């Protein structure tokens, strides 16, 4: 079954590539707007040969990683602190609900004025967007501790640290990992957004440059690379999820008995 779906998936990708090759060749869409797949791929290989691809990819990955790390640390620390004190939770709920839906792009003009086209400007919007994903998930997780487990921990007189380690942490972990995955996706979107509209170096800036200079095939190739970076990120965090939650029923269930 797995092998079959692998082949079907490959066939799907090949079919998609073929479709994009044929549509401009037959003339349904002008190849000035949609270059055939072969031309996009050759533009991509030219770019790789010229050695001009890895620097922007590295820039994008670096901005993304720094932003995600900052957001995750801040989200986990604040989430655990706020989540474990009922008074704080009640007092901050309305503020969090208000600040969270503010679209992070609203900060773009401010980021441009504050920092100019440097990494810090993009980091501002990346951290803002990813932080809330993380915080909200951790808050849910800390609150979700099973009452029976909590009473058990109390009966055995587990200390503060032991409770945090054996009770709160395992309960929170699945939520935190979900938060991490959501935050990683959002952070990548905003990294590229920042590169496009603030002008931080990276794939976004390269896409804009290629589009402005009329290199349509290269533009498509760079967008494809951005997508591949996203796929790689998704796969990475799926592996992380499996590793971190190998003991959790939701992951264990998927293994055939």
């Amino acid at each position, binding site marked *: 079954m797995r092998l079959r779906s692998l082949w079907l998936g490959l066939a799907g990708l090949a079919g998609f590539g073929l479709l994009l090759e044929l549509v401009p060749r037959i003339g349904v869409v002008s190849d000035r707007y949609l270059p055939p797949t072969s031309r996009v791929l050759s533009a991509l290989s030219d770019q790789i040969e010229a050695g001009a691809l890895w620097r922007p990819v590295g820039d994008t990955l670096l901005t993304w990683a720094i932003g995600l790390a900052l957001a995750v640390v801040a989200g986990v620390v604040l989430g655990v602190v706020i989540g474990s004190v009922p008074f704080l939770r009640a*007092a901050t*709920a*309305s503020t969090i609900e208000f600040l969270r839906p503010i679209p992070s792009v609203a900060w*773009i*003009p401010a980021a441009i004025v504050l920092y100019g086209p440097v990494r810090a400007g993009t980091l501002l919007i990346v951290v803002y967007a990813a932080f809330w994903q993380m915080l909200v998930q951790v808050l849910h997780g800390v609150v979700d501790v099973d009452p029976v487990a909590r009473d058990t921990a109390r009966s055995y007189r587990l200390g503060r640290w032991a409770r945090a380690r054996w009770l709160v942490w395992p309960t929170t972990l699945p939520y935190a990992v979900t938060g991490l995955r959501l935050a990683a996706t959002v952070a990548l979107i905003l990294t590229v957004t920042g590169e496009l509209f603030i002008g931080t170096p990276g794939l976004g800036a390269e896409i804009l440059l290629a589009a402005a200079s009329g290199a349509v095939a290269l533009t498509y190739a760079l967008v494809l690379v*951005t*997508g591949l970076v996203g796929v790689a*990120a998704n796969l990475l965090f799926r592996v992380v999820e499996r590793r971190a939650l190998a003991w959790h029923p939701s992951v264990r269930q998927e293994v055939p008995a």
Partner: protein
Amino acid sequence: MRLAGMRLAGTVLGRVGLVLGLPAVLVTIWWIVSADSEHFLFRSLRDILVAFRETWLGPRLVEDVLPSLSRLAQGYAASLVLGIGAGVLIGSSRTLRAVVEPVLELLRAIPPPALIPLIGLFAGIGDTRRVVIIIAGCVWPILLNTVEGVRAVDEVLADTCRSYRVRGLGRLRHLVLRSASPQIMTGARQALAIGIILMVISELQRTDRGIGFAVEQFQTSFRYPEMWSGVLLLGVLGVALSLLFRLADRQILGWYHGLRATQKESR
């Protein structure tokens, strides 16, 4: 601390205090700290509020805010139709799912803003282009969540439907869409957040009206109180739309939340 919190939460007054307390404190601090601000960028809250009233509650409400919101509504509605439609199709067939899954994974992973230069090639610079950009970002969470929801339809319910020969539209409405609806709503919520982002971004370049356009114009012409008032407006819109969504969620998924609540109690 904990006891104090509970006692406070017990009274109505306490509850109102908990909801409004921190926001009131924060706004007051903002007001006082920024009151005499001479900084070129960080202006006083008073200036920003005055700018807000003068900027957004005038002709701009019709010229900039409404077009933005209407494009968001069009793009979001089209995404719902496309996403749920294709999602039900893909989710119902195991083979079709295996064929298109890698393609969908790739397309979903492309950050929607990266598509803006490409969509610009196709759709020119008109309204259509901006709606297409919103769709290009919103459709994925809806589509993928619908696929997952349709795939996870309860086996017993599906067999029951088969036994009673519930087919076609009846099956779609009462079995497939109903049991996928919590997942679909999750996707729709994510899509709304992305939609607002793209509404703003799609207006940042080569446009003549819209909230994003106006804010960018204020920024480039150094009218910072107006710029901040635009940031404030986007915040208020984000909050208002998420409240609206929560109302809709309660209407549509009332049965589901009730079910979850009783399951939690009986556990």
